[in-house]
């Protein structure tokens, strides 16, 4: 098994009020089989043992690419170099001995830093809260097969529904727009027959909330789609615009 020496430049920030700065670290004996986050675990174990500096805080939970907790920006790219891969699924075999890796939080006005690489993404919750659902009370649902949905429609809706809410799209966007996140939820629900009764209300409420949270507008850069770890298509944004236009005129 080959091991590497890796140089790290990591963003350290005590809290939202601290201006923050980059700190340099060097890790020896990094195994190519390690995941990127395991490499950071090892760094933190070293820092705790040395006792001089506090460990680096970063968000994670499932470590299998589905919970959307992790959201590091690596060498300027959200989730790092591997296409359609969340950072928890990124492995050190993608790097070489002697590499320098710069690690930052996803930066956006709507995502204030909590500590180091951990940010507050509660704005996403509030966008969903504004209308990202079908208002169906428990117990009132009709028999499931009474709602036939063409397979291709269902599949398309599913593709949008796989958004993991990590916020990479916001981090990558030059305008810090949340259009891909919001558009994906709207497209998931608006494409389905179950989503039709509330389509206008939902679309307007979620788009308004997105603006209220301080996310920028979309100007079709496409960076969001490029970094999305689950490959949500930018056509979600076109769907959102279409539905929004229909709703307001």
């Amino acid at each position, binding site marked *: 098994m080959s091991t590497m020496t890796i140089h790290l430049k990591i963003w350290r920030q005590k809290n939202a009020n601290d201006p923050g700065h980059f700190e340099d670290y060097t890790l020896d004996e990094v195994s190519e089989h390690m995941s990127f986050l395991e490499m950071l675990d090892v760094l933190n174990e070293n820092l*705790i043992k040395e006792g001089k500096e506090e460990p680096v805080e970063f968000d994670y939970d499932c470590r299998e690419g589905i919970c959307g907790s992790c959201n590091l920006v690596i060498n300027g790219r959200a989730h790092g170099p591997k296409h359609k891969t969340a950072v928890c699924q990124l492995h050190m075999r993608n790097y070489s001995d002697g590499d320098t890796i710069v690690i930052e939080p996803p930066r956006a006005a709507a995502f204030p830093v909590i500590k180091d690489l951990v940010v507050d993404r509660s704005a996403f919750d509030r966008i969903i809260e504004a209308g990202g659902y079908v208002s169906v009370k428990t117990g009132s649902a009709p028999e499931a097969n009474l709602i036939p949905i063409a397979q291709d429609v269902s*599949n398309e809706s599913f593709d949008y529904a796989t958004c993991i809410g990590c916020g990479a799209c916001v981090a990558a966007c030059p305008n810090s727009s949340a259009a891909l996140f919001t558009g994906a939820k709207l497209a998931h629900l608006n494409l389905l027959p179950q989503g039709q009764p509330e389509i206008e209300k939902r679309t307007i409420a979620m788009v308004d909330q997105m603006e209220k949270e301080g996310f920028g507008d979309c100007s079709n850069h496409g960076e969001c789609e490029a970094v999305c770890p689950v490959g949500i298509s930018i056509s979600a944004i076109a769907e959102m615009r279409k539905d929004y236009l229909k709703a307001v005129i």
Partner: protein
Amino acid sequence: MKLDSQEPSGPLEDKWNNHLQDIKLVSPNNKRKYNIIVVGTGLAGASAAASLAELGYKVKAFCIQDSGRRAHSISAQGGINAAKNYPNDGDSVWRLFYDTIKGGDYRSRESNVYRLAQNSNEIIDQAVAQGVPFAREYGGLLDNRSFGGAQVSRTFYARGQTGQQLLMGAYQAMMKEVHSGKIEYYPRHEMLDLVMIDGKARGIITRDLVKGDINKFEADAVVLCTGGYGNVFYLSTNAKNSNVTAAWRCHKRGAAFANPCYVQIHPTCIPVSGDYQSKLTLMSESLRNDGRVWVPRKKGDDRPPNEIPEDERYYYLEEKYPSFGNLVPRDVASRNAKLVTDDGMGVGETGKAVYLDFRDAIKRDGIETIRSKYGNLFDMYENIMDENPYEVPMKIFPAVHYTMGGLWVDYNLMSNVPGLFVAGEANFSDHGANRLGASALMQGLSDGYFIIPYTIGNYLADHQPGDLTTDHKAFTEAAKTSEDQLQKLLSIQGDKTIIEFHRELGKIMWDKVGISRSKEGLEEAIEQIRELREEFWTNVRVPGEMTYYNKYLEFALRVADYFELAELMAIDALDREESCGCHLRDEYQSEEGEAIRNDEDYSFVSAWEYQGINGKLKTKLHKENLEFEFVELKQRSYK
């Protein structure tokens, strides 16, 4: 401690309906006077919070993640069972009930399991109405697939992301009620204690994980939906933040802990690669629909798998269990993987792996069909292992996945502590000694959507919503205890990290309280756990302070509780002198390695009462006898 299961009498199929007619109701005007705390926002918690708020209760929902959408239910891949019988292959509520009781090796309550099967169909209806995009046939109707332990296709699925899609449905339903103002929502809050007043659960103590401060919340009832405790093993398929702390603190406040030794080891996970490994990744059981499990017949055969001819491959599940083949239940598949690797037939660098091979399925159905069914799982595998599973068989090995044990609950899902309800993986209710695939999602949602909303009213109807405030001394004392413990952990400043301790504890548990257990090994484990626990409390190093975001302090607290739970698990495993489901005692197995149950002496639920800890865990066993009125107890056979 008195355990009364509150099971209704009467014919099995009428119990739940009769019970619903008998239980008390709270009128709509009065519901808004009651405060209900829901802890955890996975499938059980989010569905319970949403449904309770829709009924008009005032709900507070707490979770440790930065959003309810990240609960570990999201990782469930394969599917959710229901007895719809859409494929017309002979399924029924009875069959789903029977498969679940049998799969659990006859160590669960008939009445609970039957109700679960009854509720299963309504869950699918509810999810579809919410917009959960389940897989569909060309005609636009819902599709099903097969899962282990069943001979019908009853599993509904959304590619390999069924948990994610169902969780989004429940999370969105919850956020709808946050919007309506009926739910107060507290992400990044961890429950540290249960507050008891006059023998009832009346609130919780939490830590705000961002600000670090300790908070007090009062309630008329507490619903605990905090998941399982598989992370006691350090390496498991659980999310890194999944933990036992909330449940364990309730146990220390008087809630009985049932069947702690029942731990499911999932047969199809990606094998361990090195010491730095932080978690194990599950490959969905659905892969066993098309993948064939094998090892080389010759010990230590190091030829590449594709060069090993057909007659030198040992398809051990197909040979030993011809009627179920690769779709035997999880416990049987895991145990057999251990048997063949212990015999030296294991593959891979460590010899701790077996092959899961899709060569024949690809030949039969074409690569595109396989890709459409399992594409995301194959990608995940290739990403982690750096091998292409379309060309080379996957290497897999069992890993800790799910805990059937949990807080004891009665038929109403209330613990023996009045006012403390427990739902989802956190309770022990429905899976006996082994859970079948695609049943966890079913249980979490059955508990949250269709049981707790009714049964909680039965309790609250007899409980006056009072003028309790968190100034009560029970809150102040509980908050101080929590704070003192955090300060204690921070003050030790020893030489070993939390992860080092956790890894050592996990190794003891995996070696001696894992796939197979023995009297000797369990006794050693208990001694080792005690010694390591003592060292933990004198030599752990926890960085930082408690007044701000501090992930390692969170871990320290959770590991402290694992050290206590671990001893209880070993004590429970030692006490149960039989093999059943996932609990395999070396002393009680047939020559072929099959579990031998002892129904005469062990047909009961082990419910443990916490009596203190001082070097040793003091605990008392209470037994809830399991009566089988409708099912004949048989030795399980999947041959």
